[in-house]
């Protein structure tokens, strides 16, 4: 099927529902439609019924208008839906009733911009804790100055968690500071005995103002910021931001740079999966697997530093290409590494796959059904383990994946064991992809200078990061600087999925369920 062949039918559906949709300036690869702010929610109903995947939303504002965007994906085609309202009355209907995944992103837009959703079911603050006064929104055009509340920030102690009533029901508050070495966030469990009746997350603790820090940056500086949206997904976020900027400037990224980006993204995938597979095993007391994968990951990171200059691959991508070429010796070393890693993980993965004590804890634990995974918009290993067969590298391929065959591994069980299996299969698939990339590595330049973008240019970047579909939205101002940047990490959909899959599980299984999902805090707190 050709790209966007479904769009006329979708537009007819909108029309039938009484929605007038106007074609807007495209942000390649996305097509764009605009609807009235009052029809924002209804348009989502139509999209949900049509079978679109809801892939994220964000707000933008200038002196006169508030604008909302959301990305709807159908068969890998991104449709950018927008709506505009006057800045004084930025009122829109909510998409949350139709796409539960929209809930937190709408609250985020409300907190940061002062967007008003007339029928949003949840009035509570999300990203803004208690640092700023009620009517101060850090990204609203009238409030460009610094915070009007310079004193100490009070603890967010009065967040009204939804209560659960009943005999013997008790609450377990956890966080924001956890016992281990992880990011801060708060979990509120309601339990009766051991089974969890409900888990509610309270995030936003590592909100450091990324979206406002981006404003006024040049493309190179934006790439550096994007590299630090989520430390474990540095390649994915930098690539998505670069793609968004490159799409609108007409730069021809050299083929060698694209191949190297693919290599870097797969290296990031392998490193994270290795670490997580071990950490999941460790959470149920199988230290052997943890030590072995930690050893392999360490060697992998050392090679990353040797070949690309950074253990986590930060700042290896720059707008227009990559920061550093891969030398011939590095290429040989990587090939040898791939052979060695395959040899090592063969028996190791066999043990993990077939170790009854491990199965006892992982099989059937933390099940996310396909219906829930779909409804919540999960991509990446979380979606794949629950049977959602989607991968941008195959379904909406960008270079260098457009010339490769990307095997997409899915599972139907949706439990913690399935998430481990999917990760193990992805490590093997990545090794094959990296070998193919090394074999067909084009010669030539590794970066092209980025031309000045046309005024008010907009761009959308979409990359299949190790955690799943990663988006970046960029708007340039008239001087070629960044006027708006929104990175949408897959974790926005992972966190609600965790709340769902822990229901009915026992409290002691929470750590391993959480680890198998591994949502990023920094990636959503922004």
């Amino acid at each position, binding site marked *: 099927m050709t790209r966007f062949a479904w769009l006329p039918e979708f537009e007819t559906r909108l029309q039938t529902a009484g929605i007038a949709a106007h074609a807007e300036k495209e942000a390649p690869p996305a097509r764009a439609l605009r609807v009235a702010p009052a029809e924002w929610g209804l348009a989502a109903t139509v999209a949900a019924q049509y079978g679109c995947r809801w892939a994220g939303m964000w707000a933008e504002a200038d002196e006169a208008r508030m604008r909302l965007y959301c990305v709807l994906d159908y068969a890998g085609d991104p449709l950018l839906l927008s709506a505009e309202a006057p800045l004084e009355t930025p009122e829109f209907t909510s998409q949350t009733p139709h796409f539960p995944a929209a809930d937190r992103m709408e609250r985020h837009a409300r907190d940061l911009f002062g967007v008003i959703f007339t029928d949003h079911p949840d009035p509570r603050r999300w990203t803004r*804790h208690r*640092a*700023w006064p009620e009517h101060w929104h*850090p990204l609203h055009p009238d409030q460009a100055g*610094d*915070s009007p509340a310079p004193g*100490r*920030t*009070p*603890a*967010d102690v009065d967040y009204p968690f939804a209560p659960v009533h009943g005999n013997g029901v008790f609450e377990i508050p956890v966080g*924001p*500071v956890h*016992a*281990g*070495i*992880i*990011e*801060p966030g708060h979990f509120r469990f309601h339990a009766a005995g051991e089974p969890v009746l409900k888990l509610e997350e309270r995030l*936003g*603790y*590592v*909100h*450091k*103002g*990324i979206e*406002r*820090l981006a404003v006024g940056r040049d493309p190179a500086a934006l790439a*550096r*910021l994007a590299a*630090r*949206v*989520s*430390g*474990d997904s*540095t390649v994915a976020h930098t690539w998505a931001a670069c793609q968004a900027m490159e799409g609108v400037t007409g730069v021809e990224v050299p083929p060698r740079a694209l191949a190297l980006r693919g290599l870097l993204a797969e290296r990031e995938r392998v490193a994270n999966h290795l*670490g997580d597979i071990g950490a999941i095993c460790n959470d149920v007391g199988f230290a*052997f697997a943890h*030590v*072995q994968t*930690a*050893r392999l*990951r*360490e060697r992998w*990171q050392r090679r990353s*530093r040797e070949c690309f200059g950074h*253990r*986590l691959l*930060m700042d290896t991508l720059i707008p227009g290409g990559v920061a550093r070429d891969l030398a011939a010796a590095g290429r040989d070393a990587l090939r040898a590494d791939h052979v060695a890693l395959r040899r090592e993980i063969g*028996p*190791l993965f*066999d*043990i993990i796959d077939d170790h009854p004590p491990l199965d006892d804890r992982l099989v059937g634990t933390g099940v996310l059904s396909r219906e829930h995974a779909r409804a919540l918009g999960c991509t990446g290993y979380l979606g794949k383990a629950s049977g959602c067969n989607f991968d941008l590298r195959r379904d909406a391929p960008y270079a260098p994946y457009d010339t490769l065959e990307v095997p997409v591994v899915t599972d139907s069980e949706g439990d913690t064991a399935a998430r481990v299996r999917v990760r193990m299969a992805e490590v093997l698939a990545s090794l094959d992809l990296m070998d193919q990339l090394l074999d067909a590595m084009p010669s030539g330049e590794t970066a092209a200078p980025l031309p000045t973008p046309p005024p008010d240019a907009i761009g959308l970047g979409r990359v299949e990061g190790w955690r799943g579909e990663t988006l970046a939205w960029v708007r340039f101002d008239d001087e070629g600087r960044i006027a708006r940047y929104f990175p949408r990490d897959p974790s926005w959909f992972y966190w609600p999925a965790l709340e769902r899959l822990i229901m009915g599980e026992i409290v002691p299984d929470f750590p391993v369920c959480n680890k198998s999902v591994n949502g*990023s*805090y*920094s990636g959503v*707190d922004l």
Partner: protein
Amino acid sequence: MLRILAHILRTGIVTEPPPTINDAALETLGLELRRAIDVRFGRSLALRFIDAGSCNGCELEVHALANPYYDLERFGVGFVASPRHADALLVTGPVSRHMETALRRTWLAIPSPKFVIAAGQCACDGGEFGVSYASYGAVENVVPVDVKIPGCPPRPEDLMLGLLASLHSKIEG
């Protein structure tokens, strides 16, 4: 079980010797133990870790300290689950405003004498995020800092060197 034992035997020991601590290294680390530590703890250092707003890059490298190449615990440096059990606080990230109170309370909960290690560029000077409406930047803007380990993120060797140097000073001091 046999498969596991065979795998362990095949793997062998990969642990490496620690980086050497010399005065120059201490100098470059910017070791600033401001207060004389009047009590000796013995040859161990219990750390409470707190992420005050990082991107999670530093955490990945702090985790790496536990892998068999570094095996930090062999030097008596370990992470504890409660600040009440800690000698020192290891902080990463620029301090987000939302973590200010949590950081301050964690620091207060550590019994004195105590010291604070800022790990990573953001914790040392604000890094890429700096001071903004949402962030206080460097950790020393919120709680007193004794040792700074720069790097984005610092490599495990840098972290190890910084931690061993702290331990060293503490015992000497």
